[in-house]
């Protein structure tokens, strides 16, 4: 099945701390791609758990149709500023999500 990555179709994917104990990721899409991603049902807690090596039961996913965005939040795997944390602000964690393969919406160019 033809595929694109989420990063190729999103306007913006950003990652940031939501307080010291959570990471939150926002995927901003245009309206059509937002609907298409929603239909593919690819973005699930299990997918996120696999991508980020976190327990799927702790993953929260929200659809925000007002801004055609999807928000994904989960507890920080490493405590902020701890010895094994390499991203104090959580700002570079969007890469795995951006690389997620999405089945290409039919009849559309990427």
């Amino acid at each position: 099945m033809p595929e694109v990555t989420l990063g190729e179709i999103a306007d913006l994917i950003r990652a940031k701390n939501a307080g010291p104990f959570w990471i939150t990721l926002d995927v901003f899409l245009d309206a059509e791609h937002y609907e298409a991603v929603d239909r593919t049902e690819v973005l699930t807690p299990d997918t996120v758990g696999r991508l980020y090596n976190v327990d799927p039961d702790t993953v929260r996913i929200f659809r925000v149709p007002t801004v055609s965005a999807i928000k994904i939040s989960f507890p920080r795997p490493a405590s902020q500023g701890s010895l094994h944390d390499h991203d104090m602000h959580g700002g570079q964690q969007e890469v795995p999500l951006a690389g997620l393969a999405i089945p290409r919406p039919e009849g559309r160019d990427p």
Partner: protein
Amino acid sequence: MSEQHTASARHTHRSRVRILVPTGMLGGGFPPETITRGIELGADAIAVDAGSTDSGPFYLGTGQAKTAAAQVEHDLRVLLCAAVKASIPLLVGSCGTSGTDSGVDWIAGMARRIAAEEHLAFTLARIYSEQSADDLVAALTDDRIRPLAPARPLTEATLKSCSHIVGLMGHEPISAALRSGADVVLAGRATDTALVAAIALDRGLPAGPTWHGAKTVECGGLCTTNPIAGGVLLEIDDTGFTVTPLDTSAACTPRTIAAHMLYENANPFELREPPGTLDTSDATYRALDSRVVRVEGSVFESAETYTIKLEGSALVGYETITVAGIRDPAVLSNIEAWTEFLTTLIADRVSTALGVAGDTYDFDVSRYGYDAVLGALEPEHSSHEIGILFRVRAGDQATATAIAKVANPLLLHLPLPGAQSMPSFAFPFSPAEIERGPAYEFVLNHTVAPATPTSMFRTEITTIDHA
């Protein structure tokens, strides 16, 4: 009284408040003309955040500020002069980055100096938010403390391990200070929204638009199309709120405004504040023109229990670091094997040469240019150069540095397993070790139910007169 009469009376007596938020962080700077413009647009108050946990646990751990004093004082001078001249209040929240008592005093010292230099007179309120571990242990015994996911139930030991603990004040202590006649309020740790909420709720404006408006503007211009151009003017009224950028080239759009509820928030629709929860799921965002946005439909639900969120930072050890550059292609093409070899040998030598027990220290080897930032999540693995950052944490500084010194010959000369010759990697400076000093971690993610909304906070009011 008929419904129609009531509605028109309400319309005639429609109340509103305008709040100028110049920047998302005091010290972050702003074009001075944006302040002039905000005052011209009828600002009733200036509110600015001065802290955050985003830069890590060191600031709460030590009570030191992240921001440069000169930058903070520069911003404060502009705002204080503008506020006093316009006879409107100035509110600063989470003083000194973590909102510790020393942070409040730090900004208060600047305010006094500025008052003397600029010949200003104003009533100053300082609101302190630090908490004693003993008081919180009593609250714990009383069963008034709850964990927030993913934290576990709190223990007395954790409370006592903190070097500083703060409670995030809501709007009530700030409102009380304003009602006592304060012109300038310097608050310790407060929720991002508390300053704006204090001004609006005091005037009887509705909670939904107040808390949602407050959240939208707390980062200043971040809710506009040009975040570095300056801050915003928030107007809250009986039925909603409006946001206007202060820089004439920037714009607020429905998307930039709506998107700010997502910023640094685990949940895009709900925000818990001390008195309850803001729910924006039915909010509507409308462009009034190409630059100004109107929001209606935000609601606020009072909670059964009023709660104050706690932040606490504990000393967890002392750290030393070393940096080494690897350009050797043979080592680079086997960096995983090299790192494993390094890690094993360091552990062995620390044990035999220093006699330091394995569970009393820990170290991290991160490989910049390879997978330092994303670790096991990194999809790309090619590199022509890798910077090794070796970081060790131990119970005291001397031990941390001793471990770094034991690691030094390995970081400098370790060949691949079985290699014939001994390399020398690229160290940038001498000595190779940098002592980072004390290391801290955030250890509280809990709420406490206080006796009253103001009982956990202490307010001092002083008159400053250099006019």
